[in-house]
């Protein structure tokens, strides 16, 4: 269902990351699950899929960086926007007590909502977050105060672990995998593939994918996770490694 939303605030989190608050003129109807997403319509410009960063009392938050027209509109325009969703499956933390969240880049976006659900369910949540340039980083606890440990990684080696999030994650999990019920991983495909390969045997790993989302309803087929007969918008974005392994491999060949 389509809902109208007014952009009421924008925060600059770091060199590239923005956090936007939308006041929905009508609530979402259902409580969104962590890692669900919405399609945000920038009137006259585009419609872009965005993870739900946070949702409380008719306020919806998304965290993004600017990559093109749509996200530029999200940053620069004011007034009214459209929100479709929540879309996708998301994940439920009901059955877990310790969870590790691994994010690459804007993969950090769904963390605030995840953390709130974790807190509510008494789940201990640790976070590994890696970025290319450390100027992208911000203090995760400002948006997700309830998280337990946060480990940063930057490829420019200025802050935290020197290298990629997946490298840090791999080293970390070799030792600590036993402490976690599941690992949730959001980031670029090659990172997800890496983690599935290297940690998939140590612990249950869930990955949240991206694809070209156009309709969001399982109709247009643009989000097909080739060569797997699954659609990101309705079957995903969250999958177990083995469900989408072929897709992660297939895609990394191109």
């Amino acid at each position, binding site marked *: 269902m389509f809902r109208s939303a007014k952009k009421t605030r924008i925060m600059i989190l770091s060199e590239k990351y923005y956090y936007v608050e939308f006041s929905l003129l009508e609530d979402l109807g259902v409580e969104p699950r962590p890692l669900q997403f919405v399609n945000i319509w920038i009137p*006259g410009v585009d419609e872009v899929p965005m993870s739900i960063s946070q949702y409380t009392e008719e306020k919806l938050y998304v965290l993004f960086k600017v990559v093109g027209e749509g996200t530029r509109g999200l940053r620069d325009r004011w*007034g009214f926007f*459209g929100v*479709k969703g929540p879309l996708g499956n998301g994940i439920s933390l009901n059955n877990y007590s310790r969870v590790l969240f691994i994010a690459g880049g804007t993969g950090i976006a769904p963390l605030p909502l995840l953390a709130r659900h974790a807190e509510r369910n008494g789940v201990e949540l640790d976070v590994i977050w890696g970025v290319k340039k450390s100027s992208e980083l911000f203090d995760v606890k400002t948006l997700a105060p309830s998280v337990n440990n946060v480990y940063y990684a930057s490829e420019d080696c200025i802050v935290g672990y020197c290298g990629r999030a997946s490298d840090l994650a791999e080293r970390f999990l070799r030792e600590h995998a036993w402490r976690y019920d599941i690992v949730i991983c959001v980031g670029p495909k090659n990172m997800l593939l890496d983690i599935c390969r290297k940690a998939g045997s140590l612990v249950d790993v869930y990955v949240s994918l991206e694809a070209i989302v156009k*309709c969001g*309803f399982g109709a*247009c*087929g643009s989000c097909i996770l080739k*060569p797997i*007969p699954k659609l990101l918008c309705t079957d995903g974005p969250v999958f177990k490694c083995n469900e989408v392994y072929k897709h992660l491999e297939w895609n990394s060949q191109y």
Partner: protein
Amino acid sequence: MSGILNTRIAGLTLEHPVLNASGILGSDPEHIDILASHGFSAIVTKTFTLNPREGYNPPILVELRSGGFLNAIGLANPGIQGIKPLVDRAKLLGKPIIISISGNSIEEFTKIAEVAEDSGASAVELNLSCPHVKGLGLELGSDPFTVFLVAREVSSILKIPVIVKLGLSDRIIESAGKALEAGARALTLINTIRALAIDIYSFKPILSNIYGGLSGPPIKPIALRVVYDVYREHRAEIIGCGGISNWTDAAEFILAGARAIQVGSAFLKNRKVVYEILEGIKKWMNVLGYSSVESLVGRSHV
């Protein structure tokens, strides 16, 4: 599946009467897997054009508060080179496959139809009715003479059956007659209906294309009327389409004269819809004491 649901339409023998509507997936081999795994008895592809089309920018689909969906995908498709892989995949899965096609000229229609036939398709469906694509659309289907020309040219060069899909228009009964006269083996009735949704805060039409096609429950009573009218006038083989969401809808279309039905929007809301329709139809036939769904076709006409 039991034989009581067996359906013959346009010369094809299907396990049961429920097909997917064109444009619900159907442009990638993996889409065929998805459709097949949800129980459709035959697969209808996305409408193919000669050359690949990107389609429109999002928003291309919006669910409406008043019911149903509004879409303007813009016939996004990979062009004729995308046809063979779909047919091969359907063959692998043992499903008949109907290639939906549209063109800017009679030559385009015939060219694509030939590719479909050469690829081993079971049938083609001529989409003469897309309500929101300029020049490829409703204008074609609302003029009975154009319908005749396109249907005749394509029918005359193909050995596989030709199905003509029409949209709502003033002269749809006449267009249907012309399609049959031209050699169409069956008619798919109807496509979406041209409609609009406006965002009341930004003042902008929601779809990037402004206009879209209305589908789902809202158009059911209209589609049913068209099926009834065309059956009454021509006793044609009809595939009913438009807002069919459950078995009672399907039953109404069968009684109105549809030998088979296509389900689009309802599949977006409920991935089990095919099985639910089939179960319902079987129970209904049981209550009525019928043992073949075909014997119920058109029974609302006295």
